[in-house]
């Protein structure tokens, strides 16, 4: 709440109310207030809550949807913009790789209704497969990217982005990060202003990207970039905060509060937009101080741009190019640069840390799938979802994991390269719909000898339980047509398709053996709902008869968090106990126990 600045749209709504909002909630609120009519996304941490939140605003105001993947989501938003409505699309950083094709061309086309693309980066890789810097996409596509530094700015910049989008005829990217998206702070919010939809603009030279049109549009895009540079130089979102003249800091987005925390009185140029950069402003600022530092997370985008102006600038020499920043990281860099004295060493006691990675839930249906996969001795091309956690001990069921939908294509490649082991691709239901179908068709077309295990847990679990076309419900929870996987897979040309109950371990083992034995593409659907979402499943817990347990550790190979070592020993091995609060009664441990000493806890007497 320190921004001495207001988005133009904000003027239209003056009723102000203070609310504690996360960055994502603030973005959703801003989009609603800015009159968004259509919003689409595919879930992805840390961006997921933006659409979940938009789904809580009245359906009369806006249509909010989960799309099958990020490219589709962006195309939906682009369609809405074509049709003259304000549209929003949200995704995590890697989602932009999927949507990039559409984005690059749409950058040439520009907007009819304003279009804002929210991209949430994940510096520090809290929950992703990499930590790419999305600002490079803005550069590549010649698009403006705004970088809010807190929830209030996330709200204001999102609103402003719609104005910029329409004024400059450009899609606008608003870049968040995990820290911003998931930090709650007070936001002063307003009311929705209805933006009257425009009519469809019938202008093929702008809307249809054939070479002749695209060549002309590219020049328009370059002109637009020059205008945006001037705009950002004059805009109040570029904040020059005067202080000590011996050095100055250029920063943007979530790095700004860290800089302020560490250097309350420094001279700071806080850029509201990190692309395109306001040249003259940068020159003036750098000339006003003796040394210039750029503090930016991940890639040296601002630093390189300043250096390219022939200005001496320091940055990545002191501030790392990998990982998330924090006050400690910023302080560390400034100490190294000789700006701050070294802090006294804390000499902190470091207790031996307990290794506690996320694990599959107690009773997770993926558990048995990976017991079978591991036993099959196959080479396993994994994919992205909760089931990626099966890479860890004790399941250790995955050999590779690249990106959403990669498993099947990777498996085809392994098969064609002559990998001697049988090859299994494991892929979740949401991931299959996202990018697995074209790969499956590829496998059939190229007659690869692979088995695909479709892990159908009826939800997009990893990201917190979002609906998808296989669940029969929309984002708002309304009924929707439901995908029939067997029919879909057969229609792709697969001859061997079978569904098993994930909780039937023997059947799963048996079916996977058959699928592997089949020459050609075989698809085994392992079917059981996730026990966490959309409803928490809890059956009667099981119990181990301690005096019978021979501590063989067979059950411990499931990695179920409800199973743990008790204080009792048997021949030098730990006996096992079940935590009744965690056990959901899936019976998998009872199925693997060779001694048969696991039973339903103090079961009521049955007639």
């Amino acid at each position, binding site marked *: *709440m*320190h921004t001495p600045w207001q988005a133009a749209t904000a003027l239209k709504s003056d009723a102000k109310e203070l609310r*504690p909002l996360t960055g994502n909630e603030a973005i959703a609120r801003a989009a609603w207030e800015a009159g968004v009519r259509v919003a689409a996304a595919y879930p992805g*941490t*840390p961006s997921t809550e933006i659409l979940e939140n938009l789904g809580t605003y009245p359906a009369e105001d806006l249509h909010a949807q989960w799309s099958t993947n990020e490219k589709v989501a962006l195309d939906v938003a682009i369609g809405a913009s074509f049709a003259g409505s304000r549209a929003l699309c949200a995704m995590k950083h890697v989602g932009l790789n999927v949507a990039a094709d559409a984005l690059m061309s749409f950058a040439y086309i520009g907007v009819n209704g304003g279009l804002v693309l929210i991209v949430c980066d994940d510096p520090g890789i*809290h*929950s992703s497969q990499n930590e790419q810097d999305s600002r490079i996409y803005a550069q590549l596509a010649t698009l403006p990217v705004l970088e809010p530094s*807190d929830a209030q700015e996330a709200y204001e910049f999102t609103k402003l982005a719609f104005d910029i989008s329409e004024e400059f005829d450009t899609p606008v990217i608003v870049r968040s990060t*995990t*820290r911003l998206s*998931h*930090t*709650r*702070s*007070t936001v002063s919010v307003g009311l929705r202003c209805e933006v009257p939809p425009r009519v469809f603009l019938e202008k093929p030279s702008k809307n249809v990207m054939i070479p002749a049109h695209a060549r002309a549009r590219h020049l328009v895009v370059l002109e637009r970039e020059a205008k945006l540079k001037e705009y950002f130089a004059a805009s109040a979102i570029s904040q020059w905060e005067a202080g000590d003249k011996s050095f100055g800091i250029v920063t943007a987005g979530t790095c700004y*509060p*860290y800089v*302020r*925390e560490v250097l309350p009185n420094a001279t700071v140029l806080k850029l509201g937009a990190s692309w395109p950069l306001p040249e003259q402003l940068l020159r003036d600022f750098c000339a006003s101080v003796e040394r210039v530092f750029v503090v930016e997370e991940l890639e040296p985008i601002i630093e390189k741009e300043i250096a390219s102006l022939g200005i001496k600038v320091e940055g990545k020499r002191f501030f790392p190019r990998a990982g998330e920043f*924090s*006050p*400690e990281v910023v302080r560390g860099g400034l100490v190294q640069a000789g700006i701050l004295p070294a802090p006294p060493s*804390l000499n*902190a*006691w470091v*207790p*031996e*840390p*307990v*290794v*506690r*990675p*996320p*694990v599959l*839930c107690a009773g997770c249906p993926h558990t048995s799938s990976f017991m079978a996969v591991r*036993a099959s001795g196959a080479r396993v091309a994994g994919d992205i979802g*909760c089931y990626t*956690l099966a890479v*860890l*001990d*004790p399941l250790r069921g995955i050999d590779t994991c690249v990106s959403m939908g990669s498993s099947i294509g990777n498996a085809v490649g392994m098969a064609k390269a002559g990998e001697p082991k049988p090859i299994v691709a494991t892929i979740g239901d949401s991931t299959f719909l996202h990018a697995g179908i074209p790969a499956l068709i590829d496998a059939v077309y190229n007659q690869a000898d692979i088995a695909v295990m479709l892990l159908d847990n009826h939800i997009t679990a990893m*990201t917190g339980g979002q609906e998808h076309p296989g669940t029969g419900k929309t984002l708002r929870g309304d009924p929707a047509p439901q995908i029939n996987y067997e029919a879909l897979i057969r229609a792709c040309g697969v001859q061997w398709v079978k569904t098993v109950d994930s909780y039937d371990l023997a059947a799963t083992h048996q079916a996977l053996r058959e699928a592997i034995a089949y020459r050609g593409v075989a698809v085994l659907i392992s079917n059981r709902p996730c026990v*966490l979402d959309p409803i928490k499943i809890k059956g009667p817990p099981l119990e181990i008869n301690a005096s019978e347990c*021979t*501590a*063989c*550790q*067979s059950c*411990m*190979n499931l990695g179920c*968090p409800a199973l*743990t*070592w008790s204080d009792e*020993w048997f*021949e*030098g*091995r*730990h006996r096992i106990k079940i935590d009744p*609060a965690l056990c959901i009664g899936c019976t998998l441990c009872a199925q693997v126990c*060779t001694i048969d000493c696991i039973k339903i806890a103090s079961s009521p007497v049955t007639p």
Partner: protein
Amino acid sequence: MNEQSKIAALNADSEPVAFNAALAEPFNVLIVGVGGQGVIMVSKVLAALAQAHGFEVKQSEVHGMAKRGGAVFSHVRFGQRVWSPTIAKGEADVLIALEWAEGLRWLPHLKRDTGVFICDTKRIVPPFACLNRKLGAKMRYSTETAEQVSAYVSEAYAIDATRMAEELGNDRAANVVLLGALSTVLEFSLPEWEKTVTSFVPKKTIAVNTAAFELGRNWIVEAKTATPADDAAAKAAPVHAHYSARLEITDAWCKSCEICVKLCPERCLTLNADRIATMTAPEKCTGCRLCEWLCPDFAIRVHLDTEAAVMEAAR
């Protein structure tokens, strides 16, 4: 008082933090635990209270993987002006832990001279702690003692919050027991606390949560006046005769059925080129005897030799 509660009595004397000095420097509370324990609820309550008090508040957590039993942490900072959403190492005024090992993990974040540590003694042992199958192997879980903790921090409370909540009939209220404990450390008024807590719990559970809050609050008040309990000598860990496992396979009797290979929990058997069961990873064998029991042809015998026996044989 249980063993760990002693820390409370060892060093608990300070007064609630007075906010009237208007908090020129932000006040930093770190809330940690394991996915599913209700860490975020605690931080939301605290953030709401501080905001109602007119402070600027930042509440930051990284979720996503957290639900699935991973470590969860939430930073809450409030004051006149708060910049960074995260708390630097050695800067937390209060550390609230919903789980013992998680509390220990974050201890270095606490201010050494003035920091207050409030920790549930609840132990959630992750599957990772039970991976070492070597005969006699110990669980990989925190072994730090209460004394080490109390030597490190200025004010520490180890409270059986989960057990207290269970006794109230709802183990999910453990986080509210801890909020009750926290309420004695921070200078918000009792009605403010109660109003905020009740607004964050499901309607049906207001009664049990109010009771949980009271319990936690009173527990700290009592702990502050209690005298330290005597140091009972730490329970000596049971000593386990050291075994080594040895397999005796009668090749002539093995009919290549592969039962032992498939069912060995340690996956240390394979069929060799002649399709006879062979031990390929002897270092992994735990001597569980499953192969011996399951082999239909009695081709495998498992010998568990104690160290003494091994020495004897060598003599």
